């Protein structure tokens, strides 16, 4: 069976499961007795049936998430939040009334002056909505009427490691489950061939030496480890250990799996431990993954006009564009949570050039992904999130010249984009002050964003809890307000 067959894809998930069961039965004839079937085919590969009941709490708007994480913190005033009034403050010291004594990183806290650096880029309004975008994102701008732009995000951390950990897990310190793991834990899987939570990463060309990504960002924390994100790697083997060893044919693999099953079955007959049945099932799922993943990764049947949507970089495996196309293909296969991390947004100096590099990496493909999902009807039940871990300062880190400046970390405000299932289209939420330094309207905390994402997935964020070390934990700690105004 080819899971990518149009017929197969046309089936609803339940029928697909049934079909794969039949195929599996045929393939593994002799390996496993009928009695074992119930337990073999019951649990799904990664998350399976959710371990908690009662979720979703209500009908979800978004069945799937594609979270496009821009690691390093894109500059909001150079991309989304125009501040034309800054021109007249150019090179002047940031007024103390704006900074309000807020803490700075030790990279700029020693600077003698904080010269205001107006964005070098031109902004224009786009679409019916008239949403403002900078000239460096022409493709994303062309989707203005699809986006819901949140200009009033803020966070608590001021350095990358804690900040990105906070975005992903709701805590600055290592150890909490990531948002994708929570979704997997609460909602289980609707796909029985692929992981429920897939993570991909790509290197940016704007600043090639940053920022590191850590396993913990997609880790399951204290949740059962099966909810950790499965990494589709951008180098070497795409999914670890998926390929049979050189010199082992698929037939031999199948036979050896049948032997493993038969022997496990015999042992089960002696001991009666149901965990043995679970293991038998996991081996069959592994075998199915070995078929379905290569099929998933094979772009050869994608027509040129679809490839064109994502831009020329789509042909380079491991690029952001290629990951976007893969995200669509995962989405088509009902993988619940797909997260892309694109590195290179940390522009302490040389921002104009570096930002252009990052936009060249991501602009075309992000817009292409939106178009592609939409034309397939997938955008109706898929939520897209685009954003980084904090914002950047209006003042220049280091010298401000005609053509160059840098910006330090700024947790007080930044912009996140959303699109797709359940969010308002062509809507701008929140407002920052003239210096893009403080929020003046509708502040949105990281917990609020996460609460809203969970809400769109049908989960009341205060209810998805996990007892660990005697305490009930949740993604949003004890906080999180739904962003009601952004809901469609």
């Amino acid at each position, binding site marked *: 069976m080819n899971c990518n067959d149009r017929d197969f894809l046309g089936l609803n998930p339940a029928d697909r499961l049934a079909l794969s069961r039949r195929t599996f039965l045929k393939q593994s004839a002799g390996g496993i007795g009928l009695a074992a079937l119930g337990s073999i085919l019951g649990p799904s590969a990664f998350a399976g049936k959710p371990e908690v009941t009662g979720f979703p709490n209500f009908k979800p708007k978004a069945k799937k998430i594609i979270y496009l994480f821009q690691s390093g913190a894109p500059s909001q005033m150079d991309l989304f939040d125009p501040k034309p009034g800054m021109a007249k403050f150019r090179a002047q010291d940031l007024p103390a009334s704006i900074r309000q004594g807020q*803490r700075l*990183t*030790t*990279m700029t806290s020693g600077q003698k002056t904080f010269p205001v650096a107006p964005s070098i880029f031109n902004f224009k309004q786009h679409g019916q909505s008239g949403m403002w975008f900078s000239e460096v994102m022409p493709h994303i701008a062309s989707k203005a009427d699809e986006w819901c732009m949140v200009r009033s995000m803020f966070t608590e951390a001021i*350095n*990358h490691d804690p900040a990105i950990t906070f975005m992903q897990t709701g805590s600055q*310190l*290592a*150890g909490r489950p990531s948002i994708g793991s929570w979704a997997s834990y609460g909602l289980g899987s609707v796909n029985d061939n692929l992981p429920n939570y897939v993570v991909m*990463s790509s290197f940016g060309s704007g*600043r090639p*030496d*940053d*920022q*590191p990504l*850590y*396993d*913990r960002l997609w880790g399951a924390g204290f949740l*059962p*480890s*099966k909810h950790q994100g499965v990494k589709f790697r951008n*180098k*070497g*083997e795409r999914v*670890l*250990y998926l390929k049979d*060893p050189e*010199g*082992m*044919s698929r*037939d031999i693999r199948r036979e050896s799996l049948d*032997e*493993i099953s*038969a*022997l496990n079955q*015999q042992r089960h007959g*002696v*001991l*009666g*431990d149901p*965990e*043995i049945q679970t293991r038998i099932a*996991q081996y069959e799922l*592994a075998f199915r*993954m070995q078929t379905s993943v290569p099929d998933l990764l094979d772009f050869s049947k994608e027509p040129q006009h679809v490839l064109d949507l994502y831009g020329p970089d789509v042909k380079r495996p491991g690029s952001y564009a290629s990951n976007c196309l893969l995200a669509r293909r995962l989405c088509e296969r009902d993988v619940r949570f797909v997260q892309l991390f694109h*590195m290179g947004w*940390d522009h302490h*100096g*040389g921002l104009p*050039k*570096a930002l252009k590099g990052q936009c060249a990496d991501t602009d075309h493909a992000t817009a292409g992904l939106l178009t592609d999902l939409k034309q397939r009807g997938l955008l109706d039940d898929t939520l897209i999130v685009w954003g980084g871990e904090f914002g950047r300062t209006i003042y220049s*880190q*280091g*010298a401000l010249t005609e053509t*160059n400046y840098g910006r*330090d970390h700024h947790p007080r405000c930044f912009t996140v984009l959303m699109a797709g299932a359940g969010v308002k289209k062509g809507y701008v939420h929140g407002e920052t002050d003239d210096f893009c330094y403080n929020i003046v309207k509708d502040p949105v905390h990281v917990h609020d964003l996460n609460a809203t994402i969970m809400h769109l997935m049908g989960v009341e964020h205060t209810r998805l*809890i996990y007892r660990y*070390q*005697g*305490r009930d934990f949740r993604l949003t700690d004890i906080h999180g307000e739904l962003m009601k105004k952004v809901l469609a």
Partner: protein
Amino acid sequence: MQVRRSSILVLLAAASTLLAEERVEFNRDIRPIFSDTCFACHGPDEAKTKGKLRLDSLEAARRGGKSGDPAIVPGHPERSAVMKRLLTTDADDHMPPAEFHKVLSKDQIDLVARWIKEGAVYQGHWAFQTPKKPAVPTIPTGGNAIDGFVAQVRTAKGFSGTPEASRPTLLRRAALDLTGLPPTEADLTAFLADPSPDAWSKAIDRLLASPHYGERMAAQWLDFARYADSNGFQSDTTRTMWPWRDWVIRAYNTNKPFDAFTVEQLAGDLLPNATEDQIIATGFNRNHRLNGEGGRIVAEWAVETVIDRVETTGSTWMALTMNCCRCHDHKYDPISQKEFYQFFAYFNSNEESGVLGEFGGAASTRKGGNTSPTYSFATPEAKVRLAEVEKAIVAAELAVKSAAKVVPAAQTAWEQKLRQGFTGKTASWAMLTGTQAVSKGGASLKQQPDGSWLAGGTNPDKDVYTVTAPATTGQLTGLLLEVIPDASLPTQSLGRAPNGNFVLSGVDAVLTLADGKKVELDFVDAQADFSQEGWPIKSLVEGGTATKAAKGAKGAKKAQPARAKTGAGWAIAGNDAENRVPRKGLFIFTPTTVPAGATLTVSLRCETLANHNVGRFRLSTTGLPSSLISLKDTPQAAELRALILKDPAARTAEDRKVIAKAFTESPEHPKRAADAQLAGLLNTKNTLPGILDVMVMKELAQPKDAFVLDRGEYDRPGAKVERKLPAALPPLPAGEPNNRLGFARWLVNGQHPLTARVWVNRAWENFFGTGLVKTSENFGSQAEWPSHPELLDWLAVDFAENGWDMKRMQKLILMSQAYRQSTVVTPEKLEKDPENRWISRGPRFRLPAETIRDQALAVSGLLVPKVGGVSVKPYMPEAVWDETSVYGDMRNYKADTGEGLYRRSLYTIWKRTAAPPSMLLFDSATREFCTVKRFRSNTPMQALSLLNEVTFVEASRKLAELALRQPGTTDQRLAWAFQRVTSRPGTPAELAVLRKGLDRRLTAYAADLPAAKKLLAIGQSAVPTDLDPAQLAAWTVTTNVLLNLDETVTRE
């Protein structure tokens, strides 16, 4: 409030029918309910108390809250407001409130009512009461004290146990539990052949005496201690803590009593006359991550470092979740926020910065290394070598002294040479007033009034600046590069990288003579007034790409430009505020004569790191003798020049002294050879392998102040606090110092209610899969009630009474019938005792990540059983570290060759942000923080790893080879292989499955030898040439089947 009085009565009626049974007990029955559903608002956290009502003591509950109604009236549920609130249908009054999403079941409400009816007797939380040794119930025949308790509970629950497991299964179980390796054939044979009644006892003793016992035990402790070979956080660089890890292995192997094990790790440095080992032991509290991110705020992370220690200590020894209290009083346990910071005060007075790097400097954070305080020591082998080197040093020092005899003559010659060199020279340095400076990468270079060049415009990835200027006629011996900060540069520093740094990777200098001929200058040395750690200017003249071996055609040395190795160069840590000052780099040439009319072209190369180009610079040249060129002593050099030129007869005694001193320091001095010899030896001594430093605790003479931190934030200090132990726990005994040492001793003084219970419970968890207290990570009031409370207390007291003897305690458990049971389970038991809490059968669960890999190495004969030492790099997937360390010194993972591939898994190098994937897949901790309990998941990724990962494929091949070399028939060899992996003989049915598959594959591989050879080529170990490839390949698949069996990855 609508009180449904009738419902209370109904309830009471129901309750009364149950009164004939056992009494409701607060700790067992009521506390879990209250703790989960009431205490968050009516518990110990004073700040959050709603309606002024607390339910965590009878006194408070009788007093009631704001309304004045007693919440609990002992004996009278119908008059108790608690019952009214639980039963009311009025949504406004109902408790717990709907938005709390906590619902009490009817049974729970029933229990509360019964408890009130029976008098509402409160008990302090059981885990906070010092355990007393209960009487041992009747011990079943053949069992021990443990079985008395187990049988009592099991019988009460209506179960019987299972018979003893077969001997092979039993030995494999114990071997895996105690050593993390399957039993050796010798151990198995000995045990199977031993008919004596104490055969089992002897088998356990053998396992406990194995050097691998300590490795198995240490593996778990490393999770607790969040041990790793990296610093964690952004660039996640290297550190050296494995000597601490080896201390743990030794401690277990020598059966260090748990009290000493505790005191030495928490406070070894404070013990009187602390030994080297006791100091190394304190590495426990330095194993936490250290933040080295560029913009980190030191005060913030110094607090996190201490809090990590508090949490780790709380979790590891007391199974308490102290971390709840950093922001507020504990919701469930009697620990206040103030007490948390009093506890904090025991751990904050270490001589440390709290962040990566020495006291906050960011310079070295990408290079990694250990952070103060550290302790230097020598391994036993190194100690021997050190003694030899030190002896040689004494001899070399003598040689240096005797060199003085030839000094006078040598000095005269030296002075003569200098005098010639000085003649005609006036200025030391002449600025290279260039007419032209060009950037290869397209940057603009504008000359400044001070003669320097400032780069602007484009900042290319890599750049080369070329300055051309007239050269000063005469001798040319040196080049001075001054780099100057400029406000226009990033971070107002010296370089053009976003962080203000630069990396100079090379310099060339070429003279163009009047006739157009070119003469390359030969760089022989370089100095700087400052170099970033790991980025010395010397790297430009040592071991560059054009090596010193490159000779001209006739053997003459060819001129060398200054060139750093790939990835190296001179940098100045321009990211640090204190380093944004002018810097000088000095290059010394082989002296070259410059004729009139020549021009000098100097190229500065910045080709190591992207965008790390020099920002503003100035160049000067000199003709001074090289021995006088120095960055430090320009006035002294001038003085010396004057003295040398002075008539020797006119020199004063002081003059002669200065000259003699200068000569002493010059390379021409006869002592030089002797000095070089000595320097070489000293260098050998300093870089001797096995001279190590490891991070340790070192208490400040004056304790640091500690404060309650509002909402746990470093920049919101409140009231100052002193060291003090939480009031709910026993006080510090009189006479104990109120510091870490007193604290550590307090944990293990036998009166502490938690330590021994927590530790025996973890032992139980290791051997039975689940602890007697299931929540082994939490003994607070949210803890689950123990399945066998008396057994837990008996074991805890017995452990402490018997000198905290770890091996004794473990042997006691392994000797029990409970442990020896077979794991066969019936559907009835599965239904009624699904988690085996009543020990109705032997425990069966998946092996830990390390054991699964170690077992495969062991049965295949690949395992290199060496204990301890520096961490190793086994096979890992390509690019495994790439995304976590684009910078930092842990990147480009490359597996070892040879034994590093086959060491036990606890020696695998551990990078926290990208832990070994095959370990993570099998639920290992990440070691970013203290983890006291692992999951046991069962996923397809695990199957893929066991089937396809190179370690397992290679182990399969080596096991196949061993099988093929066994005497006998194919069936006998299959039987051997099956037993080798599972320790037990395979059944005929099992062996038949294997035989059938093997035969099919033999045919397949015989028909496709290239495929067979490909399979055999996997892994670095040699492929035997005397075995048929088709045979070996077919067997490799079969042994891979064996390594993949559920039974193999499970301890049965």
